[in-house]
């Protein structure tokens, strides 16, 4: 398969994933060094504007896909990752591509209700003093 066809495939996967319920976005995926190169290219103004965020690698006749997603906090990350995997697999099957592996990584969970409740009424002044670390420090309980 040509590079152009792989690029089209990556674009299709990215669009499919973005449209999934619970997915808030697609992020930069890949290894740290890949990202460092990407960052360097961006800082130098060399980033290809047509680049996709999906990493697609060929292993002989099979394809390996890595995608990093954001998830809405009202949707479970596990369920959303499963749906993403299934959707990517469906795209590959539709193109008759053999699947070497699909890696889905949740990299951000977006709060759907970010409002902070009001502060409480203050307790007695002896409750705390600036810079105090509580005796015993750690309040620990099993979950």
């Amino acid at each position, binding site marked *: 398969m040509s590079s152009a066809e792989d690029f089209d495939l990556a674009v299709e996967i990215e669009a499919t994933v973005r449209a999934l319920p619970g997915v808030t976005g697609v992020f930069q995926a890949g290894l740290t060094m890949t990202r460092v190169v990407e960052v360097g290219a961006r800082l130098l103004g060399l980033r290809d504007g047509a680049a996709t965020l999906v990493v697609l690698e060929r292993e002989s006749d099979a394809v390996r896909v890595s995608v990093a997603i954001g998830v809405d906090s009202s949707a479970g990350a596990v369920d959303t990752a499963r749906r993403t995997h299934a959707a990517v697999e469906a795209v590959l099957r539709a193109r008759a591509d053999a699947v070497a592996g699909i890696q889905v990584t*949740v990299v951000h*969970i977006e709060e759907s209700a970010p409002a902070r*409740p009001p502060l409480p009424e203050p*307790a007695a002044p002896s409750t705390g003093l600036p810079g105090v670390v509580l005796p015993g*420090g750690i309040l620990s309980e099993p*979950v």
Partner: protein
Amino acid sequence: MTGEPDYDLKTLGVEPEELDGFTLEDLTDYLDEGRTPPNPAIEESAGCRLALDALERLRALTPELLAADVAAEPATDEGWVQGILAGIALDARAGRRIPLTEEVPGRDLGITEGAIRGLIRAAETAVPGVLVGRCFIDGEVEEFGVPVRIRLEIGVAFGTPIPASVELLRTEIAARLRTHTGLNVTGIDISVRDVSAPIVVAGGEPAWPEPAGSEPTREIHSLDINPEDNR
């Protein structure tokens, strides 16, 4: 303080690449501009988004604390917020990749440690008067099902009922982790590191109510970001 802030993420042990080439100052400026025009390099970076989330929550609590303009008077109680900022920079790193499910051939579902730390940090929105400073996930998390413990340091606003707030925070974190991860969490350790004095922002109302009989409310005009104080 005049000119550019003198902090450097490298002094925190964080290379700029950990935030995909951006610094906290860049992100603060971006927030100042209302995130417009949208910068894809920031919006598509998970580390930047995690840091932005935390900065926005911090800003919501003390709206002018991160103001770019610097007043003539020295700030009086910056250590607490400096610690929070240091935690934001460090916790935004992607960290380890943690499996979401048991291993299945051809299927690899995971979540970054940074995303989980962001999830935990965001639990502060459910607990008035609490800000999360640092967050740690202790254990061999790269193996599914292995027992892990969550450890975090928090600051609380003066007057906040600490035991009740800690319990509420623990409950919120546990619920979030159950919803979004496959972690086998055996405990959540919360260490209260600071109780902040009452603060008012420049020219504004107190950021939280001042108890009767307490010391006069202090006023913070500016913030010097100096990670050296937090190491």
